[in-house]
């Protein structure tokens, strides 16, 4: 309801199971398959990065909780570690320590604790931290390990392929079949982990479906069988970059997506559509973080809009077109 107390609304939004703290650790566990593949393909630097990010996040969270006179044990509820892992995964392996620290500080300190802690954040903490360093230090974040895929991610290659056709770029040796090696395997692993979340009902399936369907539909509508102007097939977009991670682990943060069922569909579709728009037409190779932040900002409006609409008229389909 529009008049509902925002605090109640925020805590009520966590699925019943997630309220018991240890279930948040399941999210961390579900990230493990993807992390394992990333470490295997991109190098063990990832392990260090994730460990440091995790330790930093828990320390920052503890410091904030202490300063606010709350129990420090809350820092180990698993949520700070989820944020840290998501940031660690998003940053290229071997990124400078100060970039990593700034991202974690921006995520846990700025986007979560300043807004009142777990359940009160308006934006996804990990994506705030990541976007913060992405716009501040683009050069630092563009360096991916040379042995993995010659210094550029598949999205970079597609974005900056001069006159090459899409099919040529994709069939070149450094590329895999669907989303580019090793990204297709990483995405598959996150897809597998994400299914665990769906089974445990820690993530709303409507959000996930909305993201993947909208991204696939947008890619299918503009796909022209691989010319030099092509933006890539649906399969490519599903299995490259941060798609699966975003769809299953980021967009599904229960506090920052709408509560109404139709709102969740629209929210997911908005994320998927924005990812495609930014990838295909923007200057950033991957738009997942921005797409999630923008959709987070629109989430309260979507909730108001769908909750009031449900009563009078059940029409709610034209929203998709507005944003494109």
């Amino acid at each position, binding site marked *: 309801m*529009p008049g509902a107390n*925002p*605090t109640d*609304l*925020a805590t009520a939004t966590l699925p019943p199971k997630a309220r018991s703290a240890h279930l948040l650790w399941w999210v961390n566990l579900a990230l493990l398959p993807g992390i394992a593949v990333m470490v295997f393909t991109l190098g063990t630097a990832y392990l260090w990065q994730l460990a440091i990010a995790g330790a930093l996040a828990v320390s920052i969270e503890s410091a904030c909780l202490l300063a*606010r006179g709350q129990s420090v044990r809350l820092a180990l509820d698993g949520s700070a570690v989820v944020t840290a892992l998501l940031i660690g995964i998003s940053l290229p392996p071997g990124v400078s320590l100060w970039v990593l620290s700034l991202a974690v500080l921006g995520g846990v300190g*700025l*986007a979560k*604790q*300043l*807004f*009142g*802690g777990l359940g*009160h954040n*308006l*934006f996804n903490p990990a994506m*705030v931290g990541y*976007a*913060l360093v992405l*716009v501040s230090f683009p050069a630092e974040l563009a360096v991916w390990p040379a042995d993995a895929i010659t210094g550029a991610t598949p999205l970079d290659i597609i974005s900056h392929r001069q006159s090459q056709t899409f099919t040529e770029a994709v069939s070149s040796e450094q590329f895999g079949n669907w989303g580019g090696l090793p990204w297709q395997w990483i995405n598959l692993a996150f897809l597998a982990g994400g299914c665990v979340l769906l089974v445990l009902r820690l993530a709303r399936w409507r959000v996930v479906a909305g993201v993947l369907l909208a991204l696939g539909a947008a890619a299918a509508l503009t796909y022209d069988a691989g010319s030099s102007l092509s933006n890539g097939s649906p399969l490519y977009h599903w299995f490259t970059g941060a798609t699966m991670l975003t769809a299953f682990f980021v967009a599904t943060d229960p506090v920052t997506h709408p509560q109404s069922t139709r709102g969740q569909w629209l929210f997911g579709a908005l994320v998927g559509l*924005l990812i495609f*728009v*930014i990838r295909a*037409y*923007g*200057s*950033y190779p991957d*738009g997942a*973080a*921005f*797409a999630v*932040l*923008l959709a*987070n*900002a*629109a989430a*309260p*409006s979507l*909730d*108001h809009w769908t909750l009031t609409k449900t009563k009078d008229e059940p029409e709610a389909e034209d929203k998709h077109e507005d944003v494109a």
Partner: protein
Amino acid sequence: MAAEPNSLLLLLSALLVNNFVLAQFLGLCPFMGVTARRDTATAMAFATTFVLTLSAGLSYLLYHGLLVPFGLGYLNIIVFIVAIAGVVQFTELYLRHASPLLHQVLGIYLPLITTNCAVLAVALLAVQQELSLWQTLVFAAGAALGFVLVMIMFAALRERLSAQVPRAFQGAPIALISAGIMALGFMGFAGIDT
């Protein structure tokens, strides 16, 4: 950059990429001032849309029809301010007679638009970028829609702000931080207007 930007890109640029509130930091007074409630934010946003588009067109006509022929281009700021104040007054007069209901809804927000720097900025930027009349109107419409978009999103967002926010950050500080994160999201649109 191409000399003649096409209308759609011009619209997207003013609407998203160079959003007047979140990228150019113009019109922050109404953005922070009247977004505490959604209905006032919506009323203010639509009143501004109307005035902004109208005054940008009028400013174009005044600049190219009056100031340039007489070599008085340097007077543009003063003339535009008078034009904007005039448009606001006429809008108010017209609304009072034509639609008392709308006049009541917009109420005090109409005169406040006179001091919205985004309105003046649109007129000045359109002149600076040497846009044609049609392009000026598209540019103004994009700026106005971008204003409506962020006003409505931000008002709904502010209603969600929790009472658990640390006391030193309650009110304007956390609202500004939220606006900053929103602006961070809008930075993702960089490049879609080229």
